[in-house]
């Protein structure tokens, strides 16, 4: 069996095999890290949406991405309610203001999300639990990952937001996503107190919840038929596709981590190729002997391929463990939601198999030199 022979060759030279496994381990780890960032950046952009309750999102037709969402007339949400499948349509207001300590100091940009606390928009336990804290005038909840630059986020602290004295009612744990360095939640009434210049009938986003059992695609079509051309309707999957494309293609991040991914792929192949080629050279007499006994080229090639696959398989698991450790570290240090889904893990495994096959293929050239007549 080629597999058995491959295993015995690797087991015969433990130090060398361990070294190769180490190299491949690092290459796989790098692939995990690059892919993690490649996926995490759009996920950072989706963080807020992922924690909002909605089946369909209504936005302005000029919508670019979450932080450049533009506005549309609130009356569109009332029109949306006329579609039978629609159970609820709630507005979300987004604003940017300056945060400053009442005694002065830096004026920091903070994003403010205005909402109806009773609409149950956020699927975030801290927000649902503390909804009542948004009711008193000039009170906000702040995201607990608002940067330390903003000072204490303790309940009761009074700060100026957009030039208005505002009390921190409490904190919630969600993450600022890419809305900014700090995020605060306010009730609709408090939001418009902070931004008195804003027309009260202009909404940034409309969250539509459907009746149980309604088909989102069909409801989206019905909604598009009802609403005029100044609005746009996304299903959840359409929104994910749109935001991911924005972060991956329009910002440079896709290219940066994509190219890192490609380079680590090639580096992995190189490490493994190096090992296999060395091994073939060293064991050329043995391979030539096998040939002389009557083993086919194909059999010997299979041995090399299995060697490559075995090294990959052994390196994969520790790389996975190490990758999760790095993810956890990055998550705590940078607030990027670094994590991989099961299909993405499968994709990395598939990539490593391709790497194994490619490096084995590259090193086969050496195998052909195994000529029984010449060796001895």
């Amino acid at each position, binding site marked *: 069996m080629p597999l058995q022979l491959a295993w015995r060759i690797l087991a015969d030279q433990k130090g060398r095999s361990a070294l190769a496994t180490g190299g491949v381990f690092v290459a796989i780890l790098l692939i995990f890290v690059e892919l993690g960032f490649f996926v995490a950046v759009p996920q950072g952009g989706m963080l807020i949406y992922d924690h909002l309750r909605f089946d369909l999102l209504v936005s302005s037709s*000029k919508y670019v991405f979450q932080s450049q969402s533009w506005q549309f007339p609130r009356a569109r949400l009332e029109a949306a309610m006329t579609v039978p499948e629609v159970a609820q349509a709630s507005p979300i207001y987004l604003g940017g203001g300056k945060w400053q300590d009442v005694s002065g100091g830096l*004026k*920091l940009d903070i994003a403010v999300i205005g909402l109806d606390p009773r609409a149950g928009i956020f699927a975030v336990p801290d927000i649902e639990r503390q909804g009542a804290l948004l009711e008193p005038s000039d009170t906000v909840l702040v995201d607990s990952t608002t940067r330390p630059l903003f000072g204490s986020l303790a309940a009761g602290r009074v700060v100026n937001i957009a030039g208005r004295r505002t009390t921190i009612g409490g904190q919630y744990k969600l993450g600022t996503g890419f809305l900014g360095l700090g995020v605060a939640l306010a009730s609709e009434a408090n939001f418009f107190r902070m931004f008195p210049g804003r027309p009260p009938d202009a909404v940034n986003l409309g969250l539509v919840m459907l009746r149980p059992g309604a088909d989102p695609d069909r409801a989206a079509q019905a909604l598009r038929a009802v609403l005029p051309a100044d609005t746009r309707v996304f299903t959840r999957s359409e929104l994910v596709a749109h935001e991911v494309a924005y972060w991956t293609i329009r910002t440079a991040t896709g290219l940066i981590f994509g190219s890192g991914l490609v380079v680590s792929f090639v580096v992995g192949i*190189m*490490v493994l190729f190096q090992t296999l080629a060395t091994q073939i050279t060293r064991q050329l007499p043995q391979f030539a002997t096998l040939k002389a006994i009557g083993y086919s080229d194909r059999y010997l090639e299979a041995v090399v391929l299995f060697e490559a696959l075995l090294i990959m398989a052994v390196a994969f698991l520790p790389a996975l463990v190490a990758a999760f450790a790095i993810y956890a570290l990055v998550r705590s240090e*940078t607030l990027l939601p670094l994590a991989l889904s099961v299909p993405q893990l499968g994709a990395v495994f598939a990539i490593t198999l391709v790497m194994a096959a490619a490096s084995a293929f590259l090193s086969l050239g050496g195998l052909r030199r195994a000529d029984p007549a010449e060796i001895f």
Partner: protein
Amino acid sequence: MTAAQAIARFAGTRFVPLALRNLLANKRRLIRSSAGIGFAVLLMLVQLGFERGFFDASLAMVRQLDGDLVIMNASKYRFGSGDPFPHFYLATATDVAGIADVSPLYASWQDFFWRDPAGDKVYVVQAFAFDPDRPVFLLPELKAQSARLKEEDGVIVDRRARPILGMASGTAEIELNGRTVHVVGSFALGPDFMSDGTVMMSQATFARLLPGNRGGAAALPVEFGIVKIRPGEDVSRVQQALVLALPADVRVLTKPQLVAFERDFQADLSSAGPIFWLGTVVGFVVGMLISYQIIYTDLSDQLPQYATLKGMGYETAYLVRVVIEQAALSALAGYVPAWLSCLVVYRMIGAVALLPLHMTLSLTLISLGLTLGMCLLSAILAIRRVIAADPAEIF
């Protein structure tokens, strides 16, 4: 040529570049090792380049300011966040001794909306405004064209803005904040991670386009006061005088201080630095593993030859030197092609991602140091074999 052949030659010549001959002995192996080390180097170079590119993109605009000193609001925490101060402060500054010129720079990062000429999407752009007779940026193209900003609603745009904005399209009439403006020129700078494109205009045009503004340019608050000092004056002395003359709610920074201020902000709040350093470290480790394998295999293969040399009376120190030299040479053999292909990679990625990726002397030296470091380190790890080579045991 093998080490053994090299020894044979030694009889007739005084010096044999043994390490070089060892390296060149097996062309196949040389190509393989150069490719392996080269890709590890390329990985490090790309990661280091991204790290530089990220900071360079964020600092590009600040570096283009044409002034010795900059006045800005004391509550400003970063370059790109609107926090202007009253215009009349500039008059106070002009009276300070040693000052040649104080010019206003108006800026907006949130309030200027550019309509893509090809579609009907509208995007936020970074807008700067100044006196066309005193363009406060170093950009040569801007200096050459700024007189045309005196035309009503004339703007100069960044050709390297993100393509989606259509700033490089050459369209002369563009809608900015709902008003048709004329593109009278362009410069090449590139976007950063906050703004997709930049528009420059006269202060009069700025005052007309700024949403909610009713007054003229004279009443507009100023984002930065760009100060030029008289030749021969001491920058820090003028800075002190300005600080004393101006109210405490503005601060005065030298240009290098402003660049450092922005760099500190970016380094503190973005995760770009650690991300790319992590990639560089991984490249280093991979490179070390590859070169260790190469050196270890080579030493194993040529152990009899090394043992022979020892038997002939060569000292271990000489053999160690040969191995180290060979490691350094293989580092160079991997480094040079990697450095060259990195130029191509920088150019391609820089053009597509609109990142300022440039090969600099410091990048070259840092990466070369890392490459030599990883190869020499692995040589030292592998060298125990040679030291242990016993002429009596080998044969």
